[in-house]
Structures are given as C-alpha cells and as structure tokens.
C-alpha cells in the first residue's frame, strides 16, 4: 500500500475544488507530481501543495493500492474522490460538498461530517461517514432522472434533506434522522433510516425505504399491513400511488394529523 498524507496548510474560507484528490489521479504520479497538481481556490488556480502539506511514498503505485489520508479540516474542500474507481480515501475530519461524486469503486471513510451531495451520482464503492451528512446524499444532479445507481453509503449520524433523491440503485443507511423527502422519486434503491423522516418516498416508483423511527407519511401511500423486522413492528405502505408507484415504505411509527 502506498499512503499519501494531505494536511491543509490553513483554513479555507473560499471553497477549494479538488477533484484531483483521488487514488486514480494520484496513482501514476510521483509525490512531486502530486504536489504540483492543479486545484482551484475560488477563481484562482493553485497547486495542491500551495494549499496542503503532502507527504508519503514518492514512487507511483497502482490505484487500488493507493490510500489517501486527509488529516484536518477539509470542510471547505469540494469534490474529493470524484469519479474514483478504486483505492481508499480516509478523512480524519470533515469534508466539503460532493465527496465521492460519480464514484465507481473504492472506499471513502469520513470520520467527521460530510457536506451536501455526498456520493452524488455514485455508481459503486463504499462511503462511510461517522458524523452527519448534508443534503442530497446519493442524489443526482439537478434535472437528471437518476441519482446514485450503485454502491453503499452509510452515515452513522443524521442526514439532511432529499436523501437519495432519484435513487436508481444502491443502498443508503442513515443511523440517525433523515430530513425532508428522503427517497423522493426513488427508482429502485434501498434506504434505511434509523431515526425519523418527513414525507419519505414521495413519488417513488420502486425500491424500499425503512424508517425505524417516526415518519410523516403522504396521503398517497396505502397502508397494507403490519410486519415485524428485526424485532421491530412496522406499518408497511405501498406508494407513491400518485404516480402509480410500487415502492415499499416501512415505518415503525407514523405521525398522525
């Protein structure tokens, strides 16, 4: 394994766009070449080493044997691990928006919180967040009919609104609460929410959403039966009938009124 360690030299008030921080990009490069990769700080083109201290083995290695360790506050750094296909990124801290954009394989572990659009349009691989995640986890780009198509996202804390919007595949697990409209327009993905959710599964055509806490359920969902999963009783709903959906929604507790 080749490990590259990256530490911010300072805080970033202006966001940094660093889609080059990816095992696929780093793998064939020497450490010096990695340092001189171009990233953007707002409207300024800078090199990676202008903003970050970079250390690690100098010799190139295959991407699947490349581990990128991010140490410090990366909450102002966007697009980390974009389109990565293998290897690993481990973040000891927070990350900014769009981490794991279009990711097809490999692994991202975030010990802190993740910004919005985590795993946007993800196709494969794994993302784990020990803290909270922002809005649009595993969602699509605006106007697209598909968000995440495959892979796994697990969030130990809570997630923001529009979790898994336009989900077309893959699995998202949120141990805490989800915000408004988790699984909206779901087209075949699986979402498990440990806590509460507001209007889950709106417009879903297929797929499964499980809310182990309390959910406010749309009037366009039909309550079918009570089922037991892992020792917890759930109301099972079919929906979203407003668009002829055949998705399954399980809610342990339903908000009335």
């Amino acid at each position, binding site marked *: 394994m080749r490990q590259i360690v990256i530490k911010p030299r300072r805080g970033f008030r202006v966001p940094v766009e660093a889609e080059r921080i990816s095992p696929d990009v780093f793998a064939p490069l020497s450490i010096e070449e990695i340092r001189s990769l171009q990233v953007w700080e707002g409207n300024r083109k800078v090199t990676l080493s202008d903003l970050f201290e970079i250390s690690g083995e100098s010799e190139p290695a295959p991407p699947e044997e490349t581990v990128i360790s991010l140490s410090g506050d990366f909450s102002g750094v966007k697009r980390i691990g974009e389109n990565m296909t293998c290897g690993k990124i481990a973040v000891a801290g927070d990350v900014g928006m769009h981490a794991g954009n279009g990711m097809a394989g490999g692994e991202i572990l975030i010990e802190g919180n993740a910004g919005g659009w985590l795993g946007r349009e993800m196709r494969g691989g794994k993302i784990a967040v020990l803290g909270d995640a922002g809005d649009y986890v595993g969602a699509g*780009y605006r*106007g697209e009919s598909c968000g995440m198509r495959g892979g796994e996202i697990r969030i130990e804390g809570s997630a923001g609104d529009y979790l898994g919007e336009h989900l077309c595949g893959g699995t998202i697990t949120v141990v805490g609460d989800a915000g408004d409209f988790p699984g909206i327009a779901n087209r075949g993905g699986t979402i498990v929410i440990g806590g509460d959710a507001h209007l889950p599964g709106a417009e879903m055509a297929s797929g499964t959403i499980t809310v182990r806490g309390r959910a406010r359920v749309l009037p366009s969902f039909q309550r079918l039966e009570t089922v037991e999963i892992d020792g917890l009783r759930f109301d099972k709903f079919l929906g979203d009938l407003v668009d002829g959906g055949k998705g399954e929604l399980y809610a342990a507790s339903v908000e009335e009124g």
Partner: protein
Amino acid sequence: MIIEGGIVYDPKNGVLGEEMDVSIEDGRVVEESRDGEKIDARGMLVLPGGVDAHAHIAGGKVNTGRIMRPEDGRRGTEPRTKLLRPSTGYTVPNCYAIGYRYARLGYTIAFEAATPILEARHTHEELEEIPIVDKGALTLFGNNWEVLECVRDGDLDKLAAFVAWGLRASRGYGVKVVNPGGGEAWGFGGNVKGIDDPVPSFNVTPREIIRYLMKANEALRLPHSVHLHTNNLGKPGNYETTLATLRAVEDIAASRDRQVLHVTHMQFSAYGGTGWKDFESKASEIADYFNKHDQFTMDMGQLIFGSATTMTADAPLEYANARLLKAKWSNHDIELEESSGVVPIVYGRKNPINAIQWAIGLELALLTEDPWQMIMTTDHPNGGPFVNYPEVIALLMSRPKREEELATLHELASKRSSLPTIEREMDWNEVAIVTRAGPAKILGLPEKGHLGVGADGDVSIYEIDPEKVDPSRDHKEVKAALARAKYTIKGGEVVVRDGEIVAVPQGRTYWVDASVPEDQAAKVEADLASKFAKYYSIQMSNYMVQDAYVTRPRVIKAGVI
C-alpha cells in the same frame, strides 16, 4: 483573399470538384482579388458555407429547454477563453455555443424555425447573441386568430396584408405553419385530426388554412415558400395526412423560381401503421410522390441516437410525448397565436420505434431522386443536435456505414423500412446541394450556398481530398473532417482555423419587408386594434419588434406590386 487550389464543389454554378481558386473581397466572391491574404487549400474540399434552413436555435422554446434541462447544460461545457464566451449544453446549447459549433462545422447561416409574433422580441434577443453566423427566423401563422378569421371570411387580400404585417412585426423571414388549427384547438386541450377536421370556434379546416396561407405567400412573392409542419405529425399512419395535404395544394403555383411548399422534418410525417405496434416506414410512398411533383421540397429531420430535446409549436404532440415517455413536460400557449411544447427524449438504438424513425430519415433523403428537393437537417434539437450533421452526411455517402449502423439497431429498422435495400450513396456534389445550394435556393437566398461572383464570401474548407478519399469506404474520415472545418470563412474573414474559432464577427439577421396596398393594410390595422383592445394582454403600440433588437439587419423586399 484568395483560396488557392482547393477542390471546389459549387453545384449552383456547375462546378463539380474542380481544382480552382476562389477570391473574396469586401465580403463577397469576386473574379480576382488584389488583396494579399492567401489560403492554401490544395488537396482540400472547398464548399460554400453551410446553410441550415431549419433549426430551433433561439427564442422562448429554446430557452425553456435550457431552463428545464440543467442536466443537458452541463454536457458540452467549455470554459471561456480570451476570445470566446463559455459554452454549455448539447441539445440546448447556450447562444455562444450555437454560433461556435456552427462555425466549426463550416456552417455560416442558420434559420430559427418557429417564432410566434408576440414573442419574436425574445427570439431576436437570442439571435443577436449568437455569434458569427447569419440568421433569420420563420414566423408562425398557422393558428393565429387573424389568419383563421381571414380564411373563414375568404379574404385573401387581407390575409396577405396581415402576413406582411406579421413578418414586419416579428422581423421574420418567412411563413411557418405548424399543425394548422391544432394549436388553436389546444387552447382548450383539443387538436385537429386531419386536414378536414374543423378548428373549434373558427369553422375553418387545416386544408383551408394551408391553402390560403400558401396563396397569400405567393401573392406577396416572398423569397421562401410556406414552411409546413404537417397535421398529425409524429403519429403512426400520418403519411396519409401528409400526402392528402400535398394533393390538396397541387393546383397552387409558385410566384418565384422555387418550390411552392416546403414540408419540414419529413421523417416525422412519413409513418405507416395503425399504432406503435405495427409502426412502419412509409418513406418510399412520400419519396415517390416527391419524385413526381417537383414543386415541393422537404428536409429530413434525421434522428440521431442519444439525447435530444423535442420542441415544437405542435403542443398536443408534446403532451402526448411526455405522457408516453413519462418525461418532464413544458407547454407554452401564446394568446391569439400559437401553442408550443418542450419534452426531453433519449433515442435508443434498441428501441424499435426510434430505430425505424432513424431509417425513415435516411430513406427519404436517398429515395428522393432530385437532391434539390431535399435538405439535410436533424430538426435540431428534435431529431438530435445539429453538431451531428457530419454523421448524417457520412450516412448519406456510405452504404457500408449504414449497414454497420443497422447491425447495431433493433431489427425492425431493417424489416419495417427499405433502407437495407437502398444502394444510393450521395457524392460530394449532392452533399453540397443538400447542405448548401439546395437550402439557399429553397429559402430564396441568392447570395448564399454558392461561390459565384457576387455571392457572400462564406466558404468552408475541409481537410479531406475528394480525389483520394472514398467516402463509401472511408466514412470515418469524412465524418471527422466535416466535424472540424480546416477553415471557415464568413464574409471574407477567417473565423475558424484548424477547427478552432479564431475570430468572432457578428452576423446579420435576415427579414422580409413585404409591401401591400394601403387599403388592405388599413383593414388589418383596424382588425388588430380591436383585437388588442379586447383580447391581447398588451398594447398594440408595444407589440412590434423594435429596431433595437435587430442591430444588423439584412432586409429583403417583397410584396404586392
């Protein structure tokens, strides 16, 4: 400027692949240039600048497509440079991308195909932003209340006066008719089912609307003929409507040396079958008819696999599309004048309908014997974006390419069309006709589409040697060369070199100013004053497109003498 030694195809002037020089001075082709600039075109193909007679490139519909499709916007993104504004979009590019991409293809003029008078100001705002190419807009008349009333009252003179007024009000170039009567019916959610189905509330039929508008068009001696999008477009079995429409106007004569009617994006109007299950091509029936009736012309409306954005004044069609595809749907009805719709679509190779549609466009182009009756288009972005023109040309020039493609398509493309049996391969002269000389003649643009003395100095030069390359076999080379002009010259200025934009001049906007007798004009004004007082939501004085919106006009005079 002298373009030296290229292999020139200039069909209008009978130049068929001759090695010769082309001289340009003060923006026009001249016998001999004293100016020093020389362009070495030896071993290269030299054509007049491309002419796009039908594309949706500006105005409300196009911008609606952009606004509702950010996912399209992000495709084709290119950052700004010192010379260029940024580009975005594939099916609905921003204005700059439209100009740059036409220029890179070697096209130097393009016509927006459908503009309602009420919203023409918007169309011109966008046309003004499209760089490099010349442009114009066709004005929609087929569902306008004033038109319907003139037809109902049988008042051809007043109709002609209104058409002249409407062209001036919209700074429009020609008469576009889309699903005549259907757009008005859509005002209450209806449609017309054929050319003899009366339009609700107005008691006129599409047949009458088309005939009257054609007669008015010819009375005004407009440079272009009526430009028709047929009723029932996009529906299985519609070839019968298309043929019925043509038969209904066989007696009308053209007032100028051109067609009397142009039927646009014929691919969408050449369908057989009673439904989608037995959907089939009727391209050969349509082409047979055209081969016997040289007073009519058409354009292909070729389908391109992949993403497209359908946009048309045929609003009921778009609603049907959206429901069928479960796609997002925009609609825009325009008071007293038109309706329109926008729906994204992805054409799939393995989709039997799309595969047959793809074959139909090619059949039409190849079975119509006279290339002067046919224009190569994709009905951008309905059949697909115009950047795919090189693909279409390669298909027209190469039977092996067509066979390669057919092998990747749903088998019904071969079974329900005659495309596999068609041997014809267009040559460079025919390509020059269907992309340059033909559309220029059909539009009535004597200074475009050729390289004779006095023509506009619009030239495209491609890095392909017609004497060495066999387009049938080397179709990939053809496509690659056409996609990236070695040089595009616009008005005597090099705007593209080696496929890159090197200058960004502003083109001109064509519009037609047709004169009519004063008494007829007065009758129209009186009618309109009443309509504005009662029905329009704006004042008549704020209606007409002001000169500020057409800053570089090229005004073509026409009218009743």
